[in-house]
């Protein structure tokens, strides 16, 4: 009896927490006229996908989606490649300034974007790449690289030294040992880091707002918001459909790769 009561309570709380997102999905399949019914209907009386169709064919949504995909993949590949080498160096090599560098990484990981953004904006104008996806990739490294370095460093600290030492005794060079021994061991960590970096880039808003003001280079975050601002009367069902579509990559990651997410979380500076 007590069990059942506890379960009921727990699931009520879970459903209340998830309600906004459930409501988002429900709203996105309701016909426009049903939204303005008083009292509102909970379950849609009739399910429609017209908002999704309109979103895809009548708005620049697909363009924003393409931009977001290019942007997030480029940032992730660049940052994870650079950070894997860097983290390996921070963990397995000895040179002066190494500890300072590790501290600097943590410091920059906490730095507010608003401090960096104005000089970065000037830099992009000066370089002549303002208003392009390239400028966003460059800007995104400023938060993604410290994050990836820090996360990968924690992961790589967990790989025992003996493994590399054994390979070296067998006559491998440091780089061979890195590719043959360390990389396979670090792979789960690299996957976690890639997922987090991807999500961070996918969700980023401020840099995109400041650095880009043309639809050609706008990612989903600022793109969808510009649809809200530009529309005369706000079409909530269209916006909810856009929100659902924007969350699809996250849902995929969540459904299939959740173990990498929780693992990455444990390593990311919140070790108890």
């Amino acid at each position: 009896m007590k069990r059942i009561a506890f379960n009921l309570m727990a699931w009520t709380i879970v459903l209340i927490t998830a309600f906004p997102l459930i409501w988002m999905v429900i709203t996105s399949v309701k016909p426009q006229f049903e939204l303005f019914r008083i009292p509102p209907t909970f379950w849609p009386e009739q399910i429609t996908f017209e908002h999704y169709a309109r979103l895809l064919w009548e708005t620049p949504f697909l363009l924003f989606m393409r931009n977001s995909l290019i942007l997030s993949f480029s940032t992730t590949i660049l940052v994870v490649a650079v950070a894997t080498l860097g983290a390996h160096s921070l963990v397995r090599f000895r040179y002066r300034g190494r500890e300072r560098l590790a501290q600097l990484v943590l410091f920059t990981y906490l730095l507010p974007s608003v401090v960096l953004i104005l000089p970065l904006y000037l830099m992009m104008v000066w370089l002549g790449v303002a208003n392009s996806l390239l400028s966003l990739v460059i800007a995104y490294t400023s938060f993604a690289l410290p994050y990836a370095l820090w996360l990968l460093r924690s992961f790589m600290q967990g790989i025992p030294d003996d493994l590399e030492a054994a390979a070296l005794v067998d006559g491998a060079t440091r780089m061979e040992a890195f590719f043959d021994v360390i990389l396979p061991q670090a792979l789960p960590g690299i996957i976690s880091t890639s997922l987090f970096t991807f999500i961070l880039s996918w969700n980023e808003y401020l840099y995109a707002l400041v650095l880009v003001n043309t639809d050609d280079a706008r990612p989903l975050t600022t793109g969808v918001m510009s649809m809200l601002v530009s529309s005369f009367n706000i079409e909530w069902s269209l916006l909810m459909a856009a929100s659902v579509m924007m969350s699809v990559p996250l849902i995929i990651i969540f459904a299939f790769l959740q173990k990498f997410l929780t693992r990455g979380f444990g390593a990311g500076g919140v070790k108890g």
Partner: protein
Amino acid sequence: MSLGKGASASGNPLDRRDAMLGVMLIAPSVLIFCAVIVYPLVSAIYLSLFNIFTPTLQGNFVGLDNYAELFAGQEFWRSLFNTLVWTVCTLFLQVVLGVAAALMLHQAIVFRALARSLILFPYFVSTVVAVLVWRWLFNDLYGILNHLMLWSGLLQMPLDWLGSMPNAMISIVLVGAWKYFPFVVIAILARLQTIPDHLYEAATIDGAGAWGRFMDVTLPQLKDVLMVVILLRAIWDFKEFDLIYLMTGGGPLIATQTLPLMVYKEAFGLDAMGRATAVAVAMMLVMLVFMVLYLRKMGREQAR
């Protein structure tokens, strides 16, 4: 950068070559760091000494005038105050809800994996999505929230959630709590799983009830991780831009304008790029307190 301590200590030429390789591996990271973090940071401090008109990016040197103007006016202090109110309130809710939800999810409930996913999802969803959904919920005419509260008798009149005070501040604090409490849940949940069972058994034998066990066993065990989580979240909440900007835009007037929003407004609303960087630098100085605390805490943990 030169040879490391390890290399000079052993004097092994192989080690020396290794140190070189190590430096080469970290070099790309360091280069990018210098270009997108160190240079902009120094540049921000430098720019804050100028009076710059944003559209033309032309300006002249004014020394510390930007700061003097800032500290003499009311808007900076009001924004700092708003930032503190927002940070303290939303952080408090995040921690309370986060710990409670973690304790709940630590118990055996049906479909626990699904329950965890549903609780964690708000943290991973884009702020843009979160804000759109909540603005729809808060909608004064057709929003479900007003409707439910009218229907249940909690309200007599529909409430203007975002356009008036103190509702606007309460609304962003609530949405912030909803969006970020899963971070606390994950961290606490991970820690709960490592508390040894025998501590609870001992407490039960000593006659402690559920509440007693929580106070005497769980809470002391969670102390360290809670400190880290609170510091991290304090830093992140303090610098939050997206959520507040998209929910209220700082309004009504400047009632929910926090420091990051003020930076944006000065730079692109009022075209005063120099003054904007001055606000940003001042904000960073306030944050430095938390950042140093966190770095020291992490430094101690690494040493352990």
